[in-house]
Structure formats: structure tokens, C-alpha cells
């Protein structure tokens, strides 16, 4: 269990960060997902762990999105504080052996994460789970709680949308 959590914590954090665009929220989401996963699914076969973990994480992202909508409504009627910071500036890592190269990578990475975060949540999930985490269609469907056909549709739309957003010359 420990090695599984260790292997998944970084990609899970990145997925949560792209979805939430906030470092603190992303860390909270990962911690919450880990606790719930250990509590509910530790006894399940280890092959099922990854899709189940991402399912919990995505449920957390969905709940957070709902809470934010309520918060933005409150802000709109003047009951909440505004947050105008650039979300991507909160987590950019500035370490670099070659500043020029790192700047280029940072730029490409920022453009990618910006484009990913602008995708609809389902497309975002499908792309990150299928394209990045390399889950099978069936595992992705389990994670997303939908049919395998829907996964293929969301993934295809996500790839097309990213191409349009990033352009042919990216990265």
C-alpha cells in the first residue's frame, strides 16, 4: 500500500492541480483521496487500486468545483473575498541547470497546463488518465464512472481541443 501511494502521489497532485488550479486545494484533494482510498479500498486487489484511487480523486475535484460555484455566487453578491492571483504562479518550480532551456520548458509546460485546465473536466480526466497515466479504456471508465464509449469520445475531443489551443508548433 505504501509503495502504491508513493508511486501515485506526484501524478495525483499534478492531476488535482490542473483541475483545481490551486496548490493548497490540490494538496488537500490528494490527502483526502489517500485517506478515503485506504479506508475503503485497501482490501481490494492491487490491480484495481489505480482506477479506484483516481475515481475518489475526481469525486473530490467535482465536490470542490461545486463548492467554488457557491463561493463565487457569494462573492458576486459581495459576501466573499476576491482572489486575483495567477494560479500558475503558485507552483512553478524555478530550479534549472540551464536557464534558457528551463524557460522554454516552463513556457511549454505552462501553456500545456493552462490548455488542460481550460478543458471541460471530463475531457481533462480522460486525457490525463488515458494519455498520461496510460490507464486502459476500461480502467479510465472505472475512474470516471462512465461507459467505455464515453471515455473514447472525451479523449478524442480533448486531443483535438488541445491541438487547437496549443497550435501545430507546440512545444
Amino acid at each position, binding site marked *: *500500500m*505504501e509503495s502504491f*501511494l*508513493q508511486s501515485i*502521489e*506526484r*501524478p495525483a*497532485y*499534478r492531476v488535482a492541480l490542473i483541475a483545481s488550479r490551486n*496548490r493548497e486545494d490540490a*494538496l488537500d484533494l*490528494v*490527502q483526502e483521496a*489517500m*485517506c478515503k*482510498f*485506504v*479506508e475503503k479500498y*485497501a482490501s481490494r486487489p492491487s490491480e484495481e487500486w489505480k482506477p479506484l484511487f483516481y475515481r475518489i480523486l475526481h469525486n473530490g475535484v467535482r465536490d470542490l468545483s461545486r463548492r467554488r460555484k457557491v463561493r463565487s455566487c457569494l462573492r458576486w453578491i459581495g459576501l466573499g473575498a476576491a482572489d486575483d492571483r495567477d494560479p500558475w504562479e503558485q*507552483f512553478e*518550480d524555478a*530550479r534549472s541547470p540551464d536557464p534558457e532551456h528551463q524557460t522554454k*520548458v516552463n513556457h*511549454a*509546460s505552462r501553456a*500545456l*497546463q493552462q490548455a*488542460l485546465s481550460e478543458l471541460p473536466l471530463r475531457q481533462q480526466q480522460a*486525457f*490525463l488518465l488515458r*494519455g*498520461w497515466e496510460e490507464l486502459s479504456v476500461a480502467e479510465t471508465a472505472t475512474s470516471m464512472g462512465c461507459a467505455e464509449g464515453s471515455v473514447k469520445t472525451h479523449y*478524442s475531443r480533448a*486531443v*483535438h481541443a*488541445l*491541438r487547437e489551443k*496549443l497550435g*501545430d508548433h*507546440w*512545444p
Partner: protein
Amino acid sequence: MNEQERKLVDAAKKLLDQSTADLDGETLTRLTRARNRALARQTERRRLFRRPVLLTGMAASLATAAAVVLLAFFGPLGQDAADQNFVADMGLLTSDESIEFFEDIEFYEWLSAVDGEEDDLSRVDGDRPFAGPAGPGLGPAGDGADRNGCRGAECGDVGISRII
């Protein structure tokens, strides 16, 4: 998926891998802390479920709850009550008495109970000690026995025991 899309996916994958590998120290520390917290919770849960007393208590509570539910729905108490109601209903439907009689049934029951008490009291009065220890000719029967056909002190005992 065409070649350009495949290139895009590969490049995205590479960048995401790199961004994950380059996470800053504070984020990594907090992720490690989150992992340890989850694992500690798992250990705590295991310890909790290993306690035999707790498990026994939980099993007993579950068994009691199940027994109560079963008795409430399928048990003899519920069945008896249903049977009694059915018999009472059938008695009402098949009886020759008018419906007014059953409407006033409580009154008749009370009247019957009062009559019974009066009978018992009159029996006791007939056996009182000052009425004489049942000498010959004192009882209404005129043969040494009272109206219950009893003789002497034994009748008093019988009367009292009936009331009791």
C-alpha cells in the same frame, strides 16, 4: 489518432512527467505527510478491528438488533395479535347479538364484574364469625349448612379464598 496528435500526446506526457519530477521540496514534504497520515489511519483501523472485545460487542449488538427485527415482523407475538383480531372480527360478524350490544360491551363487562363482586361479598358476609360458628339450623339450608351448602369454619375459608 494521426501522427500530429500522437506527437502532441507524447510531448504532453513528457512535460507532465518532467513537471512531476521537478516538484519543489515543500510540496514533496506535504505529499509525504499526506501519505503517512493515510497509512497511519489504516494502521489505526486495523488495530481497532483486531480488538476482540469490541468485535464481540459489535457482533452481539448486531445479533440483538436482527432478533428484534425478526420478532417484530415474523415473530409469534405479531402473529398471535393478528390471529386474535381475526377471531374477534369473525365473532362479531357471526354473532346473533345486535351491533348495539357490542358497542356497549364494556358496560356489560363492567356490570358482570360488579355482580360477581357482590356475590363474593355476600358469601363472605354469610361466613362472618359473629354470625356464629355455623351451628345447626343457622344456615338457610336449615341443616347446619349455609346457602353454599358448606358446613362450619371450612366454608369461611373457602369464601375468603375465592375473594382472594
